């Protein structure tokens, strides 16, 4: 089908990663979203992050719910298994898939409607359990696929395409995630590739739930004057907390590391995120500072981006379950059916 053919790789992208795979091995079907959609920019950074991190595509599970954002897993990592499910329920898919095969790399793409409205319960419980996965919210403050209704992340006073003013305070998924103990919480902008790429790589290196709330303007329904999720508004108002750099564990790199100016966070696989001070010093390991910063951003309507909170050490859900190291899905019958003697003993007990 015409809509499913892969785009040709740009020249100069034919070099191999540490697995010997090239960038096209990480691409997906051509996007069917509106031309200029912020989501496509994020898709491209996901492709690049997974390629550069050398994630084996066959180990990836791409998961989503319903909405424009939820279509995007079809547009990257063609070699991976994908599951586009029901509205707001992607977190339960991730939980089930990771229980079945703890070695998978799960990436879920959701939207602000899919997560902050219909799926907020599952989102919160996924974060609470610390299910290992990369959770991306492509946040445009609007329902795109149903043509322009406000979502629960629309800012107070933001205007719809038809001039209606949003009367309610937004739900801040990052604040909620920090509150619930998420160990990797970032906010970014689809137009800020320089920041988005290292944050995505850091999410790959993280072991529990990694949340990226990415403002991704809807070119068709929320890109007008008066919207606080338009390209122009986001570009004009983005306030990076720091410059983000990333060095994977498998690369030796010289880092321009000046104490007092740069903070480093070691991730569970040995990779490092480097955060270079922009304005004030920001400590991403402080839950308190993260919450205060997010509260300030809400009160003053500031668009602060960067790694808001990092706590890479807590046990993820699969570790909590104390499962075998091998995926449960592949265990042979000898491991999963107890011997006859066990049943006989049980019958004796019930006599």
């Amino acid at each position: 089908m015409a809509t499913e053919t892969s785009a040709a790789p740009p020249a100069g992208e034919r070099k191999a990663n540490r697995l010997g795979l090239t960038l096209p091995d990480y691409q997906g079907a051509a996007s069917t979203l509106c031309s200029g959609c912020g989501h496509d920019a994020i898709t491209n950074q996901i492709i690049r992050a997974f390629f550069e991190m050398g994630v084996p595509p066959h180990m990836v599970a791409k998961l989503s719910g319903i909405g424009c954002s939820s279509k995007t897993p079809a547009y990257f990592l063609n070699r991976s298994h994908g599951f586009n499910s029901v509205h707001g329920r992607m977190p339960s898919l991730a939980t089930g898939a990771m229980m079945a095969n703890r070695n998978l790399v799960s990436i879920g793409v959701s939207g602000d409607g899919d997560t902050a409205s219909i799926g907020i319960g599952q989102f919160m419980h996924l974060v609470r359990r610390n299910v290992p996965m990369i959770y991306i919210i492509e946040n445009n403050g609007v329902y795109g696929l149903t043509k322009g209704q406000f979502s629960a992340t629309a800012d107070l006073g933001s205007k719809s395409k038809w001039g209606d003013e949003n009367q309610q305070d937004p739900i801040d998924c990052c604040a909620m995630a920090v509150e619930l103990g998420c160990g990797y919480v970032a906010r970014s902008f689809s137009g800020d590739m320089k920041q988005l790429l290292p944050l995505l790589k850091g999410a790959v290196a993280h072991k529990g739930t990694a949340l990226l709330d990415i403002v991704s303007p809807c070119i068709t329904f929320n890109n007008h004057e008066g919207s606080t999720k338009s390209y122009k508004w986001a570009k004009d108002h983005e306030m990076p907390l720091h410059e983000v750099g990333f060095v994977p564990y498998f690369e030796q790199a010289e880092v321009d590391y000046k104490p007092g100016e740069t903070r480093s966070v070691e991730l569970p696989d040995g990779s490092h995120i480097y955060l270079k001070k922009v304005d004030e010093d920001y400590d991403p390991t402080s839950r308190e500072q993260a919450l205060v910063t997010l509260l300030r951003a809400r009160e003053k309507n500031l668009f602060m981006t960067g790694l808001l909170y990092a706590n890479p050490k807590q046990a993820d859900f699969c570790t909590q379950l104390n499962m075998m190291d091998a995926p449960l899905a592949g265990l042979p019958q000898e491991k999963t059916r107890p011997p006859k003697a066990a049943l006989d003993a049980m019958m004796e007990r019930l006599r």
Partner: protein
Amino acid sequence: MSTLAAPQKPVKVTAPVVNDFSIEIGTINGSGSQTANNMLMRSIFQMGVPVSGKNLFPSNIAGLPTWFTIRANKDGYIARKAELDVAVCMNPDTVFEDIAALRPGAVCLYNDELPVDESIRTDLIWYRIPFAKIVKDSCPEPKLRRLVTNIIYVGVLDWLLGIDLEETEKALKKNFVKKPKAADLNIGSLRAGYEWAKANLQKKDPYRIERLNKTAGKIIIDGNAAAALGSVFAGVTVLAWYPITPSSSLCESMIDYLEEFRVDKETGKKTFAHVQAEDELASIGMVIAAGWAGARACTATAGPGISLMSEFIGLGYYAECPGVVFNVQRTGPSTGLPTRTMQGDIAVCANLSHGDTKHPMLFPCNPEESFEMAGVSFDLAERLQTIVFVMLDLDLGMNNWMAEPFTYPDKPLDRGKVLSAVDLNRVGKFERYRDVDGDAIPYRTLPGTDHPIAGYFTRGSGHNEAAKYSEKPADYKNNMDRLARKFDTARGLVPGPVIDQVPEAEIGYIAFGTSHAATEESRDQLKAEKSIGVSYLRLRAYPFNAQLKEFVARHKRVYVIEQNRDGQMRDLIALELGPEVAKIRSIRKYDGIPIDARHITNELLSQEGK
């Protein structure tokens, strides 16, 4: 109290009634009566007499009335018996209702602290028991007296009915195997009750338990535990659930058995994962994704959970993901009566979710089948790549049943059509939704399969045979037609019906699940009392196979027996029959109390005009 209007005749006891009567104990829930009642049931079982127990309990933790019915029957009838022979009244809130409901000639044991005037029913056989005095004399610690009061009536009944005291002591020791102090305490009060009865009562009633050898080798277990055990021996790897009566104990038993049997001795690591989800939407989502990723996954729930799972179940059907749902049915609609039984979700589960959907259902009738069908359900789910319902109900799931010991499953697990990387190299081509074998069941791959063509995209939206997004009418129809053919394939894979054909019989019964025992007993009643032979087809699964139609063809009138208001199974059957549908009649019970044989027999005779 209508019984008072009729002239009451004093009871004249003639011949003893041995091993054929029912006992009902009315207590307050949360008072520890469950243990006492189970010990009484087990004592009769250990005497070799077939027995069944039904717990009628409130949706409440403590303080509301609860009744426990035990039926002892030498012929092995284990359905609930509607008529009571012996009543034990412990609850001030229900004592007068309980007494009024007794038939003339019945026995009534009551707590002497209740304001009962025996002259209100001169047609009963009375025993007045001073529980407070007996417990005070036998249990030195006042704090513990409340806990052992109920075991005293077991001691009294042991003496009265001729149950060997040692059998009850044995049962108590088994029950409190890890709590010897509790065992001793209970045994003390049990003996006190027995000794008091021996010293103070005079046997006035005809009911007796005498040793038989009809329970040798058998076990006692509830259907939920049996299904849980069946799952563990079927290699379940993922359990996701949300607590709801009457299914919670299925999951809790499963976790207990998994922890016992499925932890690797060397590493201490588990060959399973279980999670208590935030709701039923999440639990079924986890099951579907775990099945998609290759696990043997299940959940257990009841009516309200089934309603919540509807959208995801449709996804499981359309995207073709394996998963098992144990539906321990309770009385609906809405919250309904959460602690009462019903076969009320037949229609909804057959077609759960929007659009054209159909799901296989299995109908275990006893603990043996709960165990066996749990195993069958996982095989079917993976073979058919779909959600399979195992339809228990509260009566089966939560009551203790006498059962044959379970047979170890010797058939290897059927993991269905899954292509490995080696397979993919061999076949060279993979299209997720193509019917390669002509049985309408496609091949699948699992995430993590290291092969460039292994990956595919699963979606609940339109897709073609290659699993690509498609809105083309032909692709949609092609897929839906294949799914319908797959359901036809299922007819030959699910357990077939059990048929007992009576030569020359005009009448046939069709029943399923927990209506089975009462149906069998009704057939015997009709044979013995009216010389009417009735054939019997017991459904074990949906979709049905050709035997159903043939059975109907062989009879003039066929009665579908079920425990719901609308004749849900009758309707499903009617859809299969064509003109033969005119032969179908319906016998139903839907008051939340398990069906009994007399109800079926009377209904049949009335509809037959006899």
